[in-house]
């Protein structure tokens, strides 16, 4: 294989890889599609075209993949868009492993385009932009090399360097131009097709919904994405806060799912303007990041007041209202990428709502049990409590028992008929939802009011505030203690409450989060106002140390520097432009000779490479060619116009061309007559 071909194929394969990566970073593709595509890409880069001889047979594999994906979609386990994206990746993988032919190349590039479009539908975050650029550059280079390769005769070396240099330069300018355009001009929201609001890298995070269903694997525990940032006042000053961040509560359990009888949406919109420094309460400035992906407000446990909420979208920020929903949930009314708001809560460990404040139906709900509850639950609870009736003490006793007798695991698969009994008596292992559900229901069997609370557990100190990761999502129990209200009791073993992702992954994600934050603040959220601010800051006279304006009316040094830079940029641009404008334009006579040669081409004259019109005319004259009498005056006039300083007059070119056209047509007719005549003679 020629050197250029190898390079072209590597560029093509890498371009396809970048396109696939633009979808993969959404974190929504099934893992097996990632693995298959990755394997195919590695083989392709190593030059192993495994399907080269069995293209049609191996296409059956795609059929199998399509069936699997289709079944997933029908079962509701997979979004249709995600399935389509995954399938596009598998098609591309198949093409990568097929024989490298022009048709295959086209299919790889086309599937790359599809995958990039799929990536836009799935995410549209910073890394997507990176892979989009990578795909564009790599595929363009590969396509250009393909064009050159087609033009270079077999056996001759490819002018790889001569092609790549100007091309790479051109692409560099194009990308730089696109980036500059992107930064300089206001942006549109280009991620309108996303299945949900920008979860970014990694899977969807919170899982807040109207119900909590027991069972299933708890993959969220390993997700280190930061979903929440908070600055607390007063600052507790701890490295790990280990606080419960409450999202919402549930009080009805039907044996499979938790729901909330709660208060129905009251239709009452409220926005509380907060004043910092309320007695004994912890003030929080909360920021729910794009990875959060839900609209439920979160605050330290037992929030007293929430307000001053703002939603941040790719088109800008605006104030929004909060609405109180059932189950103590407070929800942002508008969808957005991220939210900021303030909250006041009782200090960690404090108790919440008072018993008397709860409506009767909600109080009753705190004691309801599933109709088909396993009798062993109550019996076990009674046996463990051994007569203990005080709600808090009983809850702690039961929690200790659960932690002692049951193991923590995320490896749960498949639905079981009675997940609670399965957890307590069969498997004896589960995750936080199992522990919390078991504690809550065991308490209820003993007549103690309790409910399930969900949110986050954790709080890692970063830059003076606290962050909470997606893996910190947690469920626990609220026990209603007369006179104190709801008190948190957590049955989950302490070591498994917080995020369980690896440190390396956390660091990588932290880096990504920092980059993304920079991207958002410096690029995506960089508005016209920011541009004006920068311009104003440049020309504003510097302040003196006392804060007063200097009497000097001269612009500050930075304004001079900016003017200098702008001047240099303008000069450089002018130089480039001047070089472009000074470029020798094709001579008028050259355009004429182009037209003449186009006419001659229709006469099917055989011409050796590099033969000029002058050479051709001399040759035709020598050979006594029938077109020579028409061509000679035209050639002479062209030579006069081009080299003799006697330009063509207005309309002269058209007249000359018309003459030539007639001559060519006459010649064609004559040749046709000649070829017919012998046949006619034979016929007669």
């Amino acid at each position, binding site marked *: 294989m020629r050197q250029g071909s190898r390079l072209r194929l590597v560029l093509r394969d890498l371009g396809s890889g970048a396109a696939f990566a633009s979808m993969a970073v959404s974190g929504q593709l099934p893992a097996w599609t990632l693995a298959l595509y990755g394997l195919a890409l590695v083989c392709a880069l190593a030059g192993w075209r495994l399907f080269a001889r069995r293209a049609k047979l191996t296409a059956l594999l795609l059929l199998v993949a399509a069936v699997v994906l289709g079944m997933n979609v029908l079962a509701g386990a997979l979004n249709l868009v995600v399935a389509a994206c995954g399938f596009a990746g598998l098609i591309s993988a198949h093409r990568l492993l097929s024989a490298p032919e022009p048709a295959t190349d086209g299919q790889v590039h086309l599937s790359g385009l599809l995958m990039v479009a799929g990536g836009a539908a799935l995410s549209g975050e910073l890394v997507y932009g990176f892979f989009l650029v990578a795909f564009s550059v790599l595929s363009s280079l590969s396509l250009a090399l393909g064009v050159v390769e087609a033009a270079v005769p077999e056996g001759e070396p490819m002018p790889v360097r001569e092609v790549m240099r100007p091309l790479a330069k051109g692409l560099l300018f194009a990308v730089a131009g696109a980036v500059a355009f992107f930064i300089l001009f206001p942006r549109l929201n280009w991620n309108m097709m996303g299945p949900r609001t920008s979860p970014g890298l990694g899977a969807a995070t919170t899982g807040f919904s109207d119900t909590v269903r027991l069972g299933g694997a708890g993959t969220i525990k390993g997700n280190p994405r930061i979903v929440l940032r908070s600055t607390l006042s007063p600052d507790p000053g701890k490295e790990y806060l280990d606080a419960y961040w409450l999202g919402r509560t549930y009080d009805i359990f039907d044996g499979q799912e938790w729901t909330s009888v709660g208060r129905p949406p009251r239709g009452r919109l409220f926005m509380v303007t907060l004043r910092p420094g309320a007695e004994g309460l912890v003030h929080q400035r909360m920021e729910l990041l794009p990875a959060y992906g839900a609209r439920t407000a979160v605050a330290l446990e037992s929030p007293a007041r929430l307000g001053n909420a703002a939603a941040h979208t790719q088109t800008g920020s605006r104030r929004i209202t909060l609405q109180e929903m059932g189950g103590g949930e407070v929800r942002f009314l508008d969808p957005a990428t991220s939210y900021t708001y303030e909250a006041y809560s009782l200090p960690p460990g404090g108790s919440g709502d008072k018993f008397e404040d709860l409506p009767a139906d909600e109080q009753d709900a705190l004691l309801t049990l599933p109709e088909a509850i396993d009798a062993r639950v109550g019996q076990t609870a009674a046996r463990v409590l051994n007569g203990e009736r005080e709600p808090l003490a009983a809850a702690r006793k039961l929690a200790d028992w659960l932690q002692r007798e049951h193991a923590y695991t995320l490896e749960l698969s498949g639905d079981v008929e009675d997940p609670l009994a399965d957890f307590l008596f069969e498997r004896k292992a589960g995750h936080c939802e199992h522990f919390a559900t078991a504690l809550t229901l065991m308490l209820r069997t003993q007549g103690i009011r309790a409910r399930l609370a969900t949110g986050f557990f954790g709080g890692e100190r970063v830059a003076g505030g606290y962050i909470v990761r997606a893996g910190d999502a947690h469920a626990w129990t609220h026990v209603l203690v007369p006179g104190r209200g709801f008190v948190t009791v957590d049955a989950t073993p302490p070591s498994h409450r917080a995020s369980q992702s690896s440190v390396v992954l956390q660091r990588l994600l932290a880096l990504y989060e920092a980059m993304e934050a920079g991207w958002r603040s410096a690029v995506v959220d960089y508005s016209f106002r920011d541009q004006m601010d920068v311009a104003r800051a440049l020309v504003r006279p510097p302040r003196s140390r006392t804060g007063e304006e200097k009497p000097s009316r001269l612009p500050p040094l930075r304004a001079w520097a900016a003017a200098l830079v702008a001047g240099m940029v303008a000069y450089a641009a002018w130089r480039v432009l001047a070089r472009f404008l000074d470029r020798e334009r094709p001579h008028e006579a050259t355009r004429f000779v182009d037209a003449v040669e186009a006419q001659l081409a229709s006469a099917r004259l055989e011409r050796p490479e590099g033969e000029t019109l002058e050479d051709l005319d001399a040759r035709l004259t020598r050979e006594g060619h029938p077109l020579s009498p028409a061509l000679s005056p035209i050639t002479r006039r062209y*030579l006069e116009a081009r080299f003799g300083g006697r330009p063509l007059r207005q309309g002269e070119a058209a007249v000359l061309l018309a003459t030539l056209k007639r001559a060519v047509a006459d010649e064609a007719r004559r040749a046709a007559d000649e070829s017919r005549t012998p046949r006619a003679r034979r016929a007669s």
Partner: protein
Amino acid sequence: MNQPARVLSPVPSPASARSAMERIATQLGRAVQGKEAQAQLVVTCVVAGGHLLLEDVPGVGKTTLAEALARACGLSFSRVQFTADLMPADILGAQVFHAQSATFQFRPGPLFRQLVLADELNRAPPRTQSALLEAMAQGQVSLDGATYPLPPPFTVVATQNPVDFSGTYPLPDSQLDRFMVRMSLGHPAPEVEARLLATRGGAPALDAVEGVSGPEEVASLRALAAELKLDAAVAEFVVRLATATRQHGDIERGASTRAVLALGAAARAQALWEARDFVTPGDVRAVLVPCWAHRVLLRSAVQGVTARDEAAHLLEEIARKVPAPR
């Protein structure tokens, strides 16, 4: 030796220049039959104001051609047979003491003619060659502090035998550069030889040559050729050709600046054959090989005929590859 010059009117236009050149070439064709292209090239060289190097085996008509040129153009002519003992004074002339007046007087040598045939130039020692080449370059002779201009249009036709090199002093490459055109006549075609034998029976071919021009006309042809328009694009093309010879892997020394100027002058004269008052890339290509084949030095050690053919081949290849302006 001298033919009476026919005084003709100065050449007013490219069209009449072409007819004048055709007249001369026709006369040359009478002397050397079947060599029309070579005859045209000789006329081109004379009109361009260059000197001509004829390189060929003996007996093909080199001397005849030179004499015919002098006769057709009405130029004073001398022939110098270069030999190993020929001294510069033998061609330049010498100061001769006159006893009567007791003074030295300059007696011009055979160089003081409008057309000089330097036969077998490579047989003369370098000093003599050098004296001739200097006179060719400057159009004058300097002797004992005095300068003697050579009669215009001073033209040298030199011959060399490319095969028999024994006991010769081959011209240095730098000196070859002073000849505008190097050409060979080659043996006549068999039918031409047969015709010669039948019709003339050995009668001198020069008898058929008529004087159809004169020194003034040659001078005016030269003046007209020198004034022809050479477009910047064509000039650039000539320079690109020179650059290509300088960068070619098989060529050790490419075309010199003098070679570039000579090609331009020859192309101007070539344009007159088409009665044009401007030069085209085709004119340049037409005279490229005769103008430059003796000026480029090949890397290969082989010299002589093979090297010249090789040089011509390389130049043709370069002319094909360097794109002509459109």
